[in-house]
């Protein structure tokens, strides 16, 4: 394969590099030139994390052929500013609080630059349109939009100042511009580097914070809106995520995954893979010296499939090789002899008599119950009863950063530098797998690009650890987006059948719920999710007579585990719709039914009969959200519905369109 000699201008400097014909611009930037500020999120041009500017135009560098950049001017995040001189857009991202995990940030900053170069004063819709090809899973985009607006303002102000300064004096200040200097910067209007910049100090303390003294605000104490401490490296593209770690002699790992939902493994033959030039090691469950299984609550998941596979995507073997391509070739040379078994794909099937067993025992993973008072008697007395069955699907965390990590032998132990939501938990699992003392495994979290519960369980960790120990070389593994979606735990699909009973006034007196969760092939966090569902079933309301049965079943579906909310978003979808249905039956507004039943100071007991001793802000949230939304409605002249008693008295909004009074199907 002949390599192409590529010459282009990179961040203001001439650059020459030899590239493979198939290489993307992203490959060259990251792997050959070491510019890791440009992120790889999906490799299909869908997420925008790899955005760079080519001749001022934003492109997805993961799809952009490197050779196409010949003669072009390329700007990456490293060319926007540096630690002594942030670009005004970077400063605006810090000031607006637009940086959270930071994985989308470099692409967003470049997208913002391309927009502001074309349109110095974009409206909100133009900004949203411009960044719509760049995904962010952390911020909800609000503060990113705000950042771009602030940047436009700052750049505009700086330009005005520069013009004034230039007309007043013959000197223009800065003599040695950094690459890609905007006119504002060359005019000496560089914003301060300090995270607590002038504009930030002005903004703090936030209007929302309670009683923060001016001194506390200056000091960055509790109650103050200071920028996050890692905001500067993140806007500069200098934060080191797992995929940004490169060490000399590093090998690259790939994982062979099961194509079967349920099958016995008769044999695994790795000899051909091991003989492939460039391959340094192959591991299967036979290479696990210690405990064979892991799990944050129940140790039921093999590090590498052992005797059997239980879902499509389960790890069966892993390879370390000189390049990712060789590792990928080696996977094809591993022969796995499977004997397919009958699978189960629904909770109902799994719990039926005679169902195929996912594990050696029954498919009922766990059950959690709440029993309180006398629900049968209370329902018999109830004036109003509502019920329904609600279903929610399997949900992907969709963090922008795919799982990544690097493991190496170091100081007589093993050092793992990787994604994590809990280093001590993961360290313990790896030590048990290796049968090493826990203190000989060191797990250091790399900068993590979003997690939302999805990076609590092990991902790359066991494979890079086994391979680093076996090959005695550093081993890095980065999941593809498809692999991340296939192999890691997700939000539980849950079916909730719920019934609520109230007295004539609409006060809840009884609740009943049956909560069925599909845990997929392994337990992961199901114990915590199901337990939380059981004890939180009816939301923030006093229910004195209740029966709740919540359970999870094993199936041969993808694994469900922890995801932001631990089962309660699924429950709220049921219970809060029922509360509205109850309100309608009792002749109350949605606000009234919640106000009537909501936890109040001094009288609150939960489903578990825990007396809540703390001060409580529940009713305050109810009033605050309602009030703010009504103010908005009044301001825009929107029709206010649902809560006529709280509608502004002067509202002359027309009656709602037909259909509003439609019957409830249940």
């Amino acid at each position, binding site marked *: 394969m002949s390599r192409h000699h590529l010459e282009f201008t990179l961040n203001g400097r001439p650059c020459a590099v030899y590239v493979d014909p198939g290489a993307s611009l992203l490959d060259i930037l990251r792997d050959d030139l070491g510019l890791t500020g440009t992120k790889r999120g999906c490799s299909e041009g*869908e997420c925008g994390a790899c955005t760079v500017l080519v001749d001022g135009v934003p492109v997805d560098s993961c799809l952009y052929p490197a050779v196409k950049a010949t003669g072009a001017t390329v700007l990456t995040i490293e060319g926007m500013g540096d630690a002594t001189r942030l670009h005004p857009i970077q400063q605006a991202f810090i000031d607006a*609080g637009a940086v*959270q995990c930071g994985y989308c940030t470099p692409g967003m900053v470049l997208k913002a630059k391309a927009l502001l170069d074309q349109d110095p004063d974009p409206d909100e819709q133009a*900004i949203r*349109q411009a960044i719509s090809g760049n*995904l962010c899973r952390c911020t*909800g*985009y609000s503060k990113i939009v705000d950042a771009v607006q602030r940047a436009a303002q700052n750049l505009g102000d700086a330009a005005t100042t520069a013009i004034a300064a230039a007309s007043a004096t013959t000197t223009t200040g800065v003599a040695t511009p950094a690459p890609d200097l905007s006119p504002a910067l060359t005019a000496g209007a560089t914003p301060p580097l300090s995270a607590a910049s002038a504009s930030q100090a002005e903004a703090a303390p*936030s209007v929302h914070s309670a009683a923060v003294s001016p001194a506390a605000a*200056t000091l*960055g*104490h509790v109650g*103050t809106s200071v920028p*996050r*401490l890692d905001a500067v490296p993140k806007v500069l593209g200098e934060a080191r995520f797992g995929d940004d770690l490169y060490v000399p002699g590093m090998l690259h790992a790939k994982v062979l995954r099961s194509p079967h939902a349920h099958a016995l493994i008769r044999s695994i033959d790795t000899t051909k893979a091991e003989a492939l030039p460039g391959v340094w090691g192959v591991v299967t469950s036979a290479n696990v010296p210690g405990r064979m299984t892991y799990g944050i609550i129940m140790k039921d998941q093999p590090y590498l499939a052992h005797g059997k596979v239980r879902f499509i995507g389960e790890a069966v073997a892993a390879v370390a090789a000189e390049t990712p391509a060789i590792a990928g070739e080696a996977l094809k040379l591993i022969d796995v002899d499977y004997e397919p078994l009958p*699978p189960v*794909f629904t909770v109902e099937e799994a719990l039926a008599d005679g169902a195929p067993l996912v594990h050696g025992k029954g498919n009922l993973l766990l059950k959690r*119950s709440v029993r309180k008072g006398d629900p049968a008697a209370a329902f018999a007395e109830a004036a109003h009863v509502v019920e329904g069955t609600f*279903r929610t*699907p399997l949900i*992907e965390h*969709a963090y922008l950063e795919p799982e990544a990590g690097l493991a190496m032998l170091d100081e007589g132990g093993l050092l793992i530098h990787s994604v994590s939501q809990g280093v*001590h*938990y993961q360290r313990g699992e790896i030590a048990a797998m290796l049968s090493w003392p826990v203190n000989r495994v060191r797990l*250091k*979290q790399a900068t993590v690009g979003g997690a939302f519960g999805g*990076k*609590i369980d092990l991902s790359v960790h066991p494979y890079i650890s086994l391979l680093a120990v076996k090959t005695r070389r550093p081993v890095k593994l980065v999941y593809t*987006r498809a692999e991340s*979606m296939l192999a890691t735990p997700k939000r539980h699909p849950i079916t909730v059948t719920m019934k609520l009973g109230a007295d004539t006034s609409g006060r809840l007196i009884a609740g009943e719920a049956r909560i069925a969760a599909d845990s997929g092939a392994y337990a992961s966090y199901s114990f915590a999710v199901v*337990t939380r569902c059981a004890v939180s079933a009816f939301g923030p309301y006093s229910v004195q007579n209740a029966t709740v049965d919540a359970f999870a079943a094993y199936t041969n*579906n993808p694994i469900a585990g*922890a995801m*932001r*909310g*631990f089962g*309660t*978003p699924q429950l709220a979808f049921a*219970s*809060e719709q029922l509360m509205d249905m109850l309100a309608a039956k009792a002749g109350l507004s949605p606000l009234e039914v*919640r106000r009537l039943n909501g936890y109040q100071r001094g009288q609150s007991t*939960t489903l*578990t009969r*825990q007396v809540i001793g*703390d001060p409580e*802000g*529940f009713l305050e*949230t109810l009033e*605050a*959200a309602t009030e703010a939304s009504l103010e*908005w409605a009044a301001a825009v002249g929107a029709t206010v*519905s649902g809560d006529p008693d709280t509608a502004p008295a002067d509202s002359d909004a027309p009656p709602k*369109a*037909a*259909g*509003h009074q*439609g*019957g*409830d*199907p249940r």
Partner: protein
Amino acid sequence: MKLRGRGTASIYYGIGNTGKPNPSSAFVEVMEDGSATVYCGAADMGQGSTTVLAQIAATELGISLDRIHVVVADTGITPEAGVSSASRQTYISGNACRIASAQAKEVLLNRAVELLDEPVDNLVVTDGIIHVANDPERSVPISDAAAACRAIGRLAVGSGSFNPPAGDLDPDTGEGTAYGTFAYATHVAEVEVDTETGEVEVLGLWAAHDVGTAVNPQSAEGQIEGGVAIGLGFALMEEVVVEEGRIRARTFSEYMIPTALDVPAIHPILVEEPTPTGPFGAKGLGEPPTIATAAAIANAVHDATGVRITELPLTAERVFLALQGTRLG
């Protein structure tokens, strides 16, 4: 026809693991120049825990934030803080950092007692200066106090741990102390439903959250906005379709998450009801913003159309069929 509707949903969320011990710990060291390093195992995945822990330590020590360095999530250096889940790090690790800071500060204050000849109860720390409460002129900088400690063989270090008051739940009835504190939230959604296509457009979302104390209000707002966006995806578009155990969509072109054009204006509202057991009154905020959104949107769709949809996501197809009186099969 386009129909407008409004929906409300309220939630509560117990902070920390349910009915189980889930402790955290931290170390704090105050150096001879008055700067301090905090060591805590809490993983920050973007939610901002490292900054929050630094603010808590700075407040307790009485020094400015820029004098604090925080080292997190490295088992070779930091003590265990448990997993960053269950919305627990601000509340639990925040307490651990505060306790460790207080212990290090106590060493300095005890030295200041000797240097200033005042009882410890009369001493306060403001911006790195230990001074007599009613006589600020009589003071000693923390740096001098730390150096004076060293001179007589004392080091200003502290360690702290905190385990929320939660106990095992009865296996049959669920009875017991499930959590140390509770967070509350109410979301209101305003939607417009196109009856010809079934498309649901969310025009605005109001999210009021009781956070106890907002350690960092801007960061708290960011948590709310991001959580609401995940809730909006859950409500309207997201579903991992699994056929015979096989995930069909494995790319972002097939598994859609909200873009900047899908997310409406989100209005975060911070309600502050300090909890006595939290660090400076703080609760947790990681998960609550995601929980109520889909329910609020579903209630808004019902308010607009009179149709109650019991299955997520509320795709245009599902809503359209529901409006026609049929269910998506």
